[in-house]
């Protein structure tokens, strides 16, 4: 017969279990386990290109070119990604580059021709956050804070078995502003210990990087070890650690490798040995921020062969005031994507083991603003109208993994949302089932895969 004291103990124990259950239950996996092992992978490398800056469907997948300017010229500005003939040469307001790919990427994968950016303002930070966290957000662009929900990088690093170190996950942005904050979240179950490495190549390897990082003292490995020994001795006499440095912290081996990579890449930059995604013979004046970012993303892929890389392009956002520049930059970004895919397919580790996903952060308005560019073409903003919620997505990869030459969705029947990319990548890299339920409202775009 239970005594009064035993009853109280039992009550406390049961209450504790019930409380713990209430917290844990939302995160129990469909399989009934709290933390699942990572599952089968489709491939071992994913490159996600946020083909960003706000791209209208009209000038991208619909190939309308100047039609919405009331000029009857249409054609394909994105010849490396999409099927379709370019605009008539007599109508070209941009410098057309011959495609670098023999066949457009759509022939090597699945095009989600009509997807939705369903909720939240169609701002760049919002669009990036939705794509990288798989959750829409109302947080504004000026906050410059890490997102509330875990990022793709954190899911990837935490839910792979064994856990992945940060050298396997990279986020490279065309600009600074709020974007450096997207490599990890403020979520209590994740955070910087699961974040991605980050570069803004135009700064790290551009003018300021060359001015302030290149040509440093090159301590030899023995010297580095001696420095480490002395540092360890000094640290042993101090009871705090500099673990609160803002951002992620790599383990020692990865840090050495990344430092060596930066030094070597700075040297190659000084020698003008970095290949840029441009047709042969093109002057360096044609390099824009997008091409710069893609060029250095390739350096990271080529030398570090990470499993997960997210990069963005951004220059098409000039559409706020310069429609001609928008067309030019859209065309260049398309070339850059084709160039990057070509490089990946020539790499001994990445070839046939990489899936690439391209998607704009959001669309742009249906109606122009009041600004005309030098060619008299009207500019477009992105202020959350229905047109700015329309996007596309292109998923390409090996034919035994990704359905080839498939086009899904229409304006009357959209397929997928921008928040579906995170679970899609989780599916590709085999950890989708391990992500606790309740964190990702989207679903993998399974239609793309064999």
């Amino acid at each position, binding site marked *: 017969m239970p005594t009064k004291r035993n009853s109280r103990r039992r009550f406390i124990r049961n209450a504790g279990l019930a409380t713990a259950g209430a917290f844990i239950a939302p995160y129990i996996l469909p399989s009934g386990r709290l933390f699942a092992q990572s599952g089968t992978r489709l491939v071992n490398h994913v490159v996600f290109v946020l083909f960003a800056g706000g791209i209208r469907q009209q000038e991208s997948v619909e190939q309308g070119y100047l039609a919405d300017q009331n000029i009857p010229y249409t054609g394909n500005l994105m010849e490396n990604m999409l099927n379709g003939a370019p605009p008539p040469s007599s109508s070209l307001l941009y410098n057309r580059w011959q495609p670098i790919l023999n066949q457009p990427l759509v022939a090597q994968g699945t095009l989600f021709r009509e997807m939705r950016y369903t909720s939240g303002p169609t701002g760049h930070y919002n669009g990036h956050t939705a794509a990288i966290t798989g959750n829409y957000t109302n947080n504004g662009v000026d906050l410059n804070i890490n997102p509330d929900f875990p990022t793709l990088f954190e899911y990837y690093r935490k839910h792979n078995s064994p856990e992945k170190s940060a050298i396997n996950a990279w986020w490279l942005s065309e600009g600074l502003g709020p974007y*450096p904050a997207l490599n990890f979240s403020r979520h209590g179950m994740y955070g910087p210990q699961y974040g991605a490495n980050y570069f803004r190549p135009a700064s790290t390897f551009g003018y300021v990087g060359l001015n302030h990082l290149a040509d440093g*003292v090159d301590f030899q490995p023995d010297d580095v070890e001696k420095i480490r020994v002395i*540092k360890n001795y000094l640290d042993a006499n101090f009871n705090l650690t500099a673990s609160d440095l803002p951002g992620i912290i790599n383990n020692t081996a990865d840090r050495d490798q990344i430092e060596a990579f930066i030094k070597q890449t700075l040297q190659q930059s000084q020698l003008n040995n970095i290949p840029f995604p441009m047709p042969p013979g093109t002057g360096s004046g044609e390099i824009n921020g997008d091409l710069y970012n893609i060029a250095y993303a390739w350096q990271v892929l080529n030398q570090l062969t990470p499993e997960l890389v997210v990069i963005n392009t951004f220059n098409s956002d000039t559409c706020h005031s310069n429609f001609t520049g928008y067309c030019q930059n859209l065309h260049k970004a398309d070339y850059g994507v084709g160039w990057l895919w070509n490089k990946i397919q020539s790499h001994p580790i990445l070839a046939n083991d990489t899936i690439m996903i391209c998607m704009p952060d959001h669309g742009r308005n249906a109606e122009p603003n009041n600004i005309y560019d030098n060619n008299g073409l009207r500019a477009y903003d992105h202020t959350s109208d229905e047109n700015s919620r329309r996007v596309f997505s292109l998923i390409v990869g090996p034919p035994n993994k990704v359905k080839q030459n498939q086009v899904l969705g229409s304006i009357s029947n959209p397929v997928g949302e921008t928040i579906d990319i995170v679970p899609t990548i989780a599916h590709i890299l085999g950890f989708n089932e391990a992500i606790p339920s309740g964190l990702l409202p989207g679903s993998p775009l399974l239609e793309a895969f064999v």
Partner: protein
Amino acid sequence: MQDSKPTIILLLLLCSLFGACKRDIFEKRIYDNVIYEVNPVTLYLNNAQKTKQKTSLQYISILYTNLYNQTIPSQKLNELSEVFLSIGDKGIANSLTLNRFLSQSDVQIPSNQQMRDDIPMFVSNTYLKFYLRNPTPYESYQLNKMISDDPDITPEMIYAAFALSNEYNFY
């Protein structure tokens, strides 16, 4: 003659009276207290007083001051701030920036000869420069020994270790 006697006595009295009021002024120079137009810095009594972590900007500007004995120019600070923003792992940014600082010809580092001529003085000065405190006897002994025992250790290595240490990241 008898009439002049009181006058002389009076003069002597007056002289002694005014002489007693005279004040000698000495100029005293204490060379230990000479001020070289540098802001005074309060030394820490021990490292337990350091509890706050430096921001990246604080780290860069203090490191520059420690290595160049001058304030970092604002343009350089702005550019370095951009570099730091562009690298996710701030420890890597710290290390690369330090290596760059150490490579410049105008960096103020004692030569290897100067260090080895008076290792205790070098150790003491390095603690003061980077940690703003004196080393404990144990710290002093250990670092002295490390340097004495290894002829390949250079002042640059010692400076690098201090600049990358945890304590240097706090104030």
